[in-house]
């Protein structure tokens, strides 16, 4: 299929480092942070990332489908994870080196543990508060206790990065509140 033309729409309050790989039609929302060496590939369809997300070094986000890949708010993509889910809700954590296949849709408050492989052959939607952990990718449901504190911590984390990253990295500038080249 013909690759999408590059079109990056970066909110003025997002922090996207210069040294990231972007391809295709990508929209990045306010307050979202993309660390250097992260990769976002909109191969077949566009990718729209909401506000307050943190995308760490060498994380890979790929959209292989025609439909828009929507990533909600306040999600954390840790170092080296790879996510191809067509939709991701809010306040999810994808831990270090976890891999999530394009057959999985992630709702909200889910945690994919470090190194977990989530690659079901059938399409699947992870219920809210699903936790996948351990070498066998066991699953359980989180009670949700502590989520307010975690959300608070997530916001402080993002706030700190918004202050610190620009001091040490060149940033990509959004094309004046959103119109691509």
């Amino acid at each position, binding site marked *: 299929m013909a690759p999408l033309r590059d079109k990056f729409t970066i909110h003025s309050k997002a922090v996207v480092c210069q040294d990231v790989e972007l391809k295709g039609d990508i929209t990045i929302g306010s307050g979202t942070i993309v660390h250097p060496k992260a990769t976002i590939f909109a191969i077949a369809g566009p990718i729209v990332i909401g506000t307050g997300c943190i995308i760490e070094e060498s994380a890979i986000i790929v959209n292989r489908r025609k439909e828009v890949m929507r990533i909600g708010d*306040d999600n954390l993509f840790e170092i080296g994870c790879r996510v191809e889910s067509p939709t991701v809700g809010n*306040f999810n954590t994808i831990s270090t080196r976890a891999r999530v296949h394009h057959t999985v849709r992630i709702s909200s408050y889910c945690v994919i543990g470090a190194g977990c492989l989530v690659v079901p052959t059938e399409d699947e939607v992870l219920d809210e508060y699903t936790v996948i952990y351990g070498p066998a990718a*066991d699953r359980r449901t989180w009670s949700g206790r502590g989520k307010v*504190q*975690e959300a608070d911590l997530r916001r402080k984390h993002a706030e700190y990065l918004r202050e610190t990253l620009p001091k040490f990295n060149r940033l990509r500038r959004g094309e004046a509140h959103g119109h691509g080249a």
Partner: protein
Amino acid sequence: MSPSVDYHCHCLASNSAPPPPHLPSSSYSFHPLHELFFCEECDAVRCNRCVSVEVSGYYCPNCLFEVPSASVRAEKNRCARNCFMCPNCRNTLSVVPSDPPDMDDGRSPSAAVSAVGEPPFFLYCNHCRWDSAEVDITFEKPTGLAAQLQKYEDSAPDSLEFERLKEHFEPFLRASSSSALAGPPPTAHSHHPHVNPITAAASSALARDIPGVGKYTPHPRGRRDKGPRDDMVEYRSRVEVGGSSTMGEADVEFMRHIEEVSEVAALEQRWANSWATSLHTSDLKPLRIPLHSKKSKRCPTCRHILIKPEQKAQSVRYKIKLVAANYLPSIKVALPQPMDLVRRGAQAARPPGGEGNSGANGLHAGDTYPFTLSLTNPLYDPIQVRLSVQRQIPPASTTVASDAAPVEKSRRPPFAVSLPSSAFPIAAFAEAWEYEDDEDMFGVDDDEFGFEAREKEGKAKNKTVGVLEKRANVTVVGGEVVIGKDAKGEVKFNMLVSYTYRSDDPLPEDDVRGTPSRTKAPEMKTFSFYTVVNLGSIVPRQETKMDTDP
């Protein structure tokens, strides 16, 4: 499996020769070099089966607190500080406050959550997100949690039963120990100089007479025993076990109706509990982290310490460390890959087809394979090494000889091994910077100690058998194995290694040693040990004939 060399400890045997390699007992008598110790007093190898082990300290693997042994007992072998283990995934739990009550919608941007945190507090697993509130365990304050959890543990029925049993026996124990004190002192109290107080206490406790239990000492029962066995009140347990309506049936009922495997607590999840626990995943309780211990090991014969860790929990070093690897040459065995053979020019002796597969595909019946033994000297002095294959006990004849006749059935191994027959040198260990130039890296004078260097003979006879390479403190020697046509099983043989070294023992007669003319100076010593060399399994002939034999 790659070829291996293991070292013998003769603690299990009556004589010093190891069992033949085809016996199952062989694998119990041989150990990898890095697991062995060396007692300088006894001049002998010691293994983990024969050393005596003592606990030299307890600590928590999480907070690294060193726990005094009195507390270990009172706190039931678990950490009494703030260290807890997730019963679901065994990660460490942290103490967290509850969420502020008015903000059940986590998305509404809040004005900062208070730093102090709100009660109730609970234990929370960052990995699998289990929390103790799921099993109704919460705390009003974030401190002193271990004590509260220990109360839960101590209220387990098994724990209560055990306490009652101890109470029941207490008066009898006290009576008997006081009568023991009145009588002749028990043997365990006469301190053996090498027994530490804990061991002494434990053994005296074990040796103590327990009234009601048959007496070990053949004393006439005429004494005024304070607790004769007839006074023993019958013990009644709190819970009658074995009746009809017990735990067992409830468990069966539960197992009959499970819908998901995850409802049943896995063995690993119940393993770390002190007492038998419920099978229900929903009943799993947070656990205080079990303590670890540091141990020291002693020679079983002379009681000298072979290894002793530093006391501090943070330290990974040892105060004393007498490991065999510092005394015995380490031996690595390899079946050369085709490229190695080409380089050594040893290929002429072999048909090109068969041996090429030796490393990768195993050993083929009816073929001959060269192998190398690379020996590394850990000593600061050069050594002379002699290798020989242990003769098999049943027919004490030709299996060892290098050009042995085709091997017959019986119990002799279906292969013949050739090793360099003469002694060869290995240079002293030295730090890399001590070598001044390349020449130092290559070999020492063979006759430095007056040994005859006869390896030339060996080389002339066969290029694969003999010394192949010398560099720094490593000498590589070649051997050869001829595998019988109908051979099966493993190519595994016992090898005796003898090495001669300069002894550091200060001998009184210095003047005698001073005379340089003696070829065998008195300070030279020889140490011998057995190893088992496993070259791999034999691929039976018929299976491979078609595709690999030329």
